[in-house]
């Protein structure tokens, strides 16, 4: 699809980073991104509590510091000094390992996400604003997020608690199921971008002048829903279901280990939001304005617009806004939608999301093939045709899911369904009358 160097894109020769500069810049980026993610995660817990409070007409935390903004510090301090409980019959090694296995992959995932346009530093060179611009970008993310399930399952098993164990079982089933749909919903993106490197996906969206949320809207929807399930957020928080499983897999965890599960959950959420923003909302791209369309295709070669420090700042703002939007969506949905039943989760994952994702791959692939054969160049027109195709498929999808029987709970029978039901109808067991006097 996109050839490098593309013919009509200006190339800028910039000063490449020396090895030492690259090393120093990388270390600085690692530290800054890690710290940034940790701080944002800490404040996400506060934001979650605020948003839940506002939605429920409450005030939210407002005691620690002005308007409660120091609440995460107080929470962290409390969790650090709390007593750590070890259940007598817990499998100790795995019990300790589990929170680490949840927290670490969640924090590692952020490494491949480009969060701003390349930053030129006078006298040093142009620094790519991504910790590691891996060629396998999104595959790395998929690999690491699927590691997260091990931590949860291990926690559930090692706690030696039946509720925790049930939570772990649910988590494994749910996360494995939705991982399939998650991966499948990403394939249209790769087909359209022709790449799995996240910087290149951003560049592909910039050159199309259209974010992939439009031409690949259905994939976007499927990805968002699967990501909700992958991060165990409502309406898919069956692994921790407070009312049924007393918070499931982390029932037996206290103090900082419990906190680590929380950090894991929220950094997963942050990463998922950043991935959604990158793949479907153009990453750090600023809409309409063309001055930020650039990519560092090799050390010292920047294609597209000229890099500048203020562009880096602006694009970082755009990235933060988009990520923040998805985080707000996460929280908004969490405090609105009730939890699915377990059979609904499985039904939605295997019978709705996966087939739809497969069909959408076929439809998108065919359309791209036809458009290529017709000689339509990759660009706005290409994207608009895909948007129309996508709108048709999405309309059909939503019409079907609107009438879906399992998710809706109470059925809207059609005539065919009634006939099938009549054939399958089983004699309902007659309720025996209650023995008299049992209530007395």
């Amino acid at each position, binding site marked *: 699809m996109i050839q490098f160097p593309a013919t009509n894109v200006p190339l800028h020769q910039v000063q490449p980073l020396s090895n030492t500069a690259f090393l120093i810049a990388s270390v600085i980026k690692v530290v800054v991104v890690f710290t940034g993610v940790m701080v944002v995660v800490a404040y996400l817990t506060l934001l979650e509590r605020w948003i839940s409070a506002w*939605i429920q007409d409450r005030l939210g935390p407002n005691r620690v510091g002005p308007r409660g903004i120091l609440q995460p510090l107080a929470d962290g301090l409390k969790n650090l000094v709390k007593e750590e409980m070890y259940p007598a019959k817990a499998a100790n090694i795995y019990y300790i390992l589990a929170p680490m296995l949840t927290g670490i992959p969640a924090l590692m995932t952020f490494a491949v996400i480009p969060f701003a346009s390349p930053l030129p530093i006078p006298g040093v060179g142009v620094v790519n604003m991504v910790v590691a611009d891996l060629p396998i970008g999104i595959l790395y993310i998929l690999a690491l997020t699927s590691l997260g399930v091990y931590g949860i399952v291990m926690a559930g098993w090692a706690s030696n608690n039946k509720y925790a164990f049930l939570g772990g079982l649910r988590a494994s089933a749910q996360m494995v199921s939705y991982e399939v749909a998650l991966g499948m919903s990403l394939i249209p993106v790769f087909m359209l971008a022709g790449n799995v490197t996240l910087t290149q996906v951003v560049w592909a969206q910039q050159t199309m002048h259209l974010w992939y949320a439009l031409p690949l809207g259905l994939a976007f929807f499927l990805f968002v829903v699967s990501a909700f399930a992958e991060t165990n957020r409502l309406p898919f928080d069956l692994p921790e279901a407070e009312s049924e499983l007393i918070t499931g897999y982390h029932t037996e965890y206290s103090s900082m280990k419990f906190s680590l599960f929380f950090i894991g959950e929220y950094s997963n959420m942050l990463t998922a939001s950043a991935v959604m923003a990158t793949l479907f909302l153009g990453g750090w791209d600023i809409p309409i304005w063309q001055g930020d369309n650039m990519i560092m295709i090799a050390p010292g070669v920047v294609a597209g617009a000229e890099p500048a420090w203020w562009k880096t700042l602006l694009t970082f703002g755009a990235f933060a806004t988009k990520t923040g939007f998805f985080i707000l969506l996460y929280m*908004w949905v969490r405090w*609105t939608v009730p939890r699915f039943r377990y059979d609904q989760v499985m039904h939605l994952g295997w019978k709705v999301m996966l087939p739809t994702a497969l069909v959408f791959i076929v439809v998108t692939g065919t359309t791209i093939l036809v458009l290529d054969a017709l000689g339509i160049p990759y660009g706005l027109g290409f994207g608009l045709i895909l948007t129309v195709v996508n709108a048709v498929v999405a309309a059909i999808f939503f019409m079907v899911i609107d009438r879906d029987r399992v998710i809706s709970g*109470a*059925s809207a029978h059609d005539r065919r369904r009634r006939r099938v039901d009549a054939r399958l109808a089983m004699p309902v067991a007659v309720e025996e009358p209650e023995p008299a006097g049992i209530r007395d």
Partner: protein
Amino acid sequence: MAIGVKVMKRPVGTTSYLRATLKGMALTFRHLVRPQKVTLQYPEVKPELAPRWRGTHRMAVHADGRPKCVACGLCPTICPSNCIRLVPGEDDQGNRYPIVYEIDEFRCIFCGMCQEVCPVEAIHVGQDYENSEFTRERFIYDLDRLMAQDHPLAALWDPEDPASQ
């Protein structure tokens, strides 16, 4: 849906998960942007009590510091929870006065009947609820404690509707 579960026949509009979800999201969003907060920031902001709100007791005091109570014994008689202990006494002029007057605020149900029945308007229930203590014994208020209380009194009746109609 499991076999044997009765499924009601309803139109799509009322059963669709998607539409219900969107409706709910709209509702929560309205509350998010325009919250109707009713929470009182309690220690800083105190609730406004109704005029007949009844809390812990107060004993009215004469100008010379004696309790107004004449130890007639009506309040321990009418008290439904039997929380008032009164030992009456009589001085040389034949005036009755309480030797012991104790109210167990744990047993009290704050019905206000003692205040209603008192012929000399000596015992009152008052508008006070910040009465926590460190020991249980401290909740038995003796005469000195009851006389020392200075919170506002509960109104016996609604001044605009004296006959309670």
